[in-house]
């Protein structure tokens, strides 16, 4: 069985811990978790560990989620895993902006384990399609 390597990017250790627990609860599969407190740490972790999926907050110090997406979109080499934005701001403007920047999905906080599982399953399908292409 495949182990999914999931990078959780959020400046709140409590929120990172919650997201990890929800993914474990939602029976998504075998997962290995990586964590980063901002976009800069996330980019370093992506280069070092090549996660399958990135879950990122938007409002973070040092480098926010929007900048992280911009940098990832501009990359021509290196790992470019799908990015799921997990944020309290679910206004249409914000969601649309993040999807245009390259996010594959948008999960609004608060969220249920079922909603988390759904975005992860959708991302898994996307990854399978890429692998089969």
């Amino acid at each position, binding site marked *: 069985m495949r182990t999914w390597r999931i990078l959780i990017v959020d400046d709140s250790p409590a929120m990172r*811990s919650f997201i990890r627990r929800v993914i474990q609860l939602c029976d998504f599969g075998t997962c290995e978790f990586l964590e980063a407190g901002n976009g800069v740490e996330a980019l370093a972790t992506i280069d070092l560990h090549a996660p399958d999926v990135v879950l990122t907050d938007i*409002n973070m110090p040092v480098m926010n989620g929007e900048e992280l997406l911009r940098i990832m979109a501009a990359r021509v080499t290196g790992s470019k895993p799908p990015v799921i934005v997990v944020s309290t*701001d679910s206004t249409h403007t914000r969601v649309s902006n993040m999807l245009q920047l390259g996010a594959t999905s948008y999960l*609004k906080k*608060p969220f249920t384990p079922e909603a988390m599982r759904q975005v992860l399953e959708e991302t898994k399908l996307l990854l399978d399609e890429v692998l089969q292409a």
Partner: protein
Amino acid sequence: MSQLVSMDVMLRSLDLAVTETLETMFFADALPAPLAGLPSGGISSVVRFEGDATGLLELRVSESSAKELAASFLGIDPPEVDRIQIESVCGEMANMICGAMVSIAAPEGRFALSPPQVLEPGEAAPVCSIIRTYEMESECLEVGLSCSFTDYSREH
């Protein structure tokens, strides 16, 4: 006058945001209740917002409720929760409630939220024009809100 959102809408959105956040992320029920007035002390977290509406939201819970909520959020026993975790979780709770409130109130709006600030013990809390109380299993949670709205008719 042309505003994207009004105070009535913001307050209804606040009720929904508190109920949804507590139920979904903290596995707790919280329903609007008559103003009870929490005892002094407790933990206060403040989130400021600006955009189509500008203001702040202050969330206040007692120390014991904060510990219970933090334990529930983190999935650990209350005695294992330390002060740093309690403050971090209270800040996140205020952030989620504020973000959900403005998103429900004005889905087409534009808002920017400040990082949550947990007040030091004894630090003066900001003055809020409206205070709402929510009843949980054994105690209450208090949310203060101050808000002004961008009037777009004045911009042209």
